[in-house]
């Protein structure tokens, strides 16, 4: 057996072990999500209720209350993890993520506007947020058509847009009725409350639509990482590949944000965890999706049940945990142009 075959099988084994481990953890968290809550269920009851067996209350609680929320957390977490991984790999910048790039900010402005000015609720707010996030993404793409400088421009332009968005949100909140302002604030924080199956379906659809983009990205990202000249020499069109990646990443981030609000840091933290576990290459993309799902679900469970009597929006939990992590990343990054 050649040295290469041995190396490749080792790498693949490591990726497989990691994926299985993450999946097991995720399954555990999902089960926990079905069990925890004021309405007590045993694991046995919960699993039977999942299949429609048991008392009507049991079945209702599991399939219409807890499962949608858990499913939304898993799908959104996966979408955010994948989106962050795409941005970070493409920009060769461990700090890129939809929130720092202002995409979440754009979605936030639109959603707050829809809530406090137009008086929309539910799906209409989500629709507005989607349009807002896409608008910012279009501006960013226009500003940094040449993305070959490690995304330096993209990141800084995004930071500028994020601040403009926060000024606009402040203005809208000041103008609003207090109760509108309050529901807007809850939305901005990012939360998985009041979930039905509808948003789960939308995020699932977005993931399905993005699948070809993800497969393409898994192939082109390792080549792009070698630099534009080498990538061209290997027969890749860097500009086209980048646009496909950005569009996929933006779609994932915006679809998610529209449903659950701009939950911070999942997109930022999941990819480096995945890289640490499985190294470079396409395996890291899949692992980032799994890690994102695990992080968001765990954070939501912690927010709901860690403090007795106080339900904390998931966005507060991810922010409070993620910010120190990001700062640690910044303080220890070595000579990287980040």
């Amino acid at each position, binding site marked *: 057996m050649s040295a290469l075959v041995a190396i490749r099988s080792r790498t693949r084994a490591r990726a497989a072990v990691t994926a299985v481990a993450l999946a097991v953890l995720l399954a555990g968290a999902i089960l926990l999500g079905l069990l925890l809550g004021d309405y007590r269920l045993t694991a046995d009851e919960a699993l039977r209720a999942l299949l429609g067996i048991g008392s009507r209350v049991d079945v209702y609680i599991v399939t219409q209350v807890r499962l949608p929320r858990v499913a939304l957390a898993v799908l959104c977490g996966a979408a955010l993890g994948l989106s962050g991984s795409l941005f970070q790999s493409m920009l060769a910048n461990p700090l890129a993520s939809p929130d720092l790039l202002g995409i979440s900010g754009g979605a936030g402005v639109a959603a707050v506007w829809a809530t406090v000015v137009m008086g929309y609720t539910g799906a209409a707010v989500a629709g507005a947020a989607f349009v807002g996030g896409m608008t910012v993404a279009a501006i960013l793409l226009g500003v940094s058509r040449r993305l070959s400088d490690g995304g330096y421009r993209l990141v*800084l*332009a995004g930071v500028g847009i994020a601040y403009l968005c926060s000024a606009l949100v*402040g203005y809208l909140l000041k103008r609003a009725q207090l109760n509108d302002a309050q529901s807007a604030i809850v939305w901005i924080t990012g939360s998985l409350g009041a979930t039905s199956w509808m948003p789960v379906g939308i995020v699932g659809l977005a993931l399905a639509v993005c699948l070809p983009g993800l497969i393409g990205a898994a192939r082109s990202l390792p080549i792009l990482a070698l630099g534009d000249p080498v990538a061209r020499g290997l027969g890749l069109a860097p500009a086209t590949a980048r646009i496909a990646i950005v569009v996929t990443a933006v779609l994932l981030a915006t679809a998610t944000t529209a449903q659950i609000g701009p939950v911070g840091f999942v997109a930022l933290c999941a990819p480096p965890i995945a890289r640490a576990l499985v190294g470079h290459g396409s395996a890291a993309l899949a692992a980032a999706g799994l890690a994102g799902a695990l992080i968001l679900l765990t954070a939501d469970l912690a927010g709901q049940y860690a403090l007795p009597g106080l339900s904390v929006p998931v966005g507060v939990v991810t922010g409070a945990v993620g910010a120190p992590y990001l700062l640690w990343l*910044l303080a220890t990054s070595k000579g990287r142009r*980040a």
Partner: protein
Amino acid sequence: MSPGTRAARGIVVLGAGLLTLTVAALLSVMVGTRPIDPGIVLDALLHADPQNPDHLVVLTQRIPRTVIGVLAGTALAAAGGMMQGLTRNPLADPGLLGVNAGASFAVLTAITVLGLTQPSAFVWFAFLGAALAAVAVYAIGSAGRDGATPAKLALTGAAVTAGLTSLSMLVLTTNTTALNTYRFWSVGSLTGRGLSEAWFVAPVIGAGLVLALITAAGLNLLALGDDTARGLGHSVRRTRTLAMIAIVLLCGSATAIAGPLVFVGLVVPHVARALVGTDYRWIVAAGIPLGGVLLVGADVLGRVVAAPAELEAGLIVAFLGAPALMSLVLRRRPVSL
């Protein structure tokens, strides 16, 4: 440019800036839902009549907001210039470096824990929060082998902002009273504050400006690189520390009286640099009138564009500042400082 012509140019810019500031201040006192003649303004200043509604508007609303605009704009512009020199970073802006989030969180703490409701009482907390956040961002952003690189500082600021914001959100989503008080403070407005707070922070800003002007010469040496500055016999650490103190005094005060404002400290130093060249003493000096012009001008503009309502100065500045930031980013080469 020889030192002589540079100084001459600086003096011209400074003079023109002060003149424009005077005009802007005058406009700020005159323009509004109730337009007021210059004569009446003068009258109100010289023989105030508490029964005259015009006099009351001038003395209790227009003059305080103008004074606050001048003070905050001046302080932010000088702080921005210092920060750009300190970090050799064209994107350094007090607002981009976590100051606002720090001030906001401190104010929220004051509202929820101490039950304060009057904006005048927020000054100390805003100041403290802003100062702590700025020091933290700078310290973390300069850690690591490559020091305080532009993007790293900007992102450290973003991270500190996001972390503090998430804590603020925890308070806001669970406490309606806090949200109601906070949302009016947070929007970066020159109204709703009285002259007493302005006089309160004026000496602090004055001290900050003096310190900034003294330290600016050292920044000229730092611009050549730490090693070169040391080779020229300069104490890099002392300059950094003094500059940081000046920045904290300046932007802490500004945020305390005017609420969180971004972009003033970013844009003005660039304008100043285009006008007077790369000498930090002149950039900081020219920024003093220009910062006031921008903020007071934005405030006046906010009264005009939305008349008879008003748009907050902070919002107008953000709308002017975001395109300015874009154009900086879009320049082919990063601005070298």
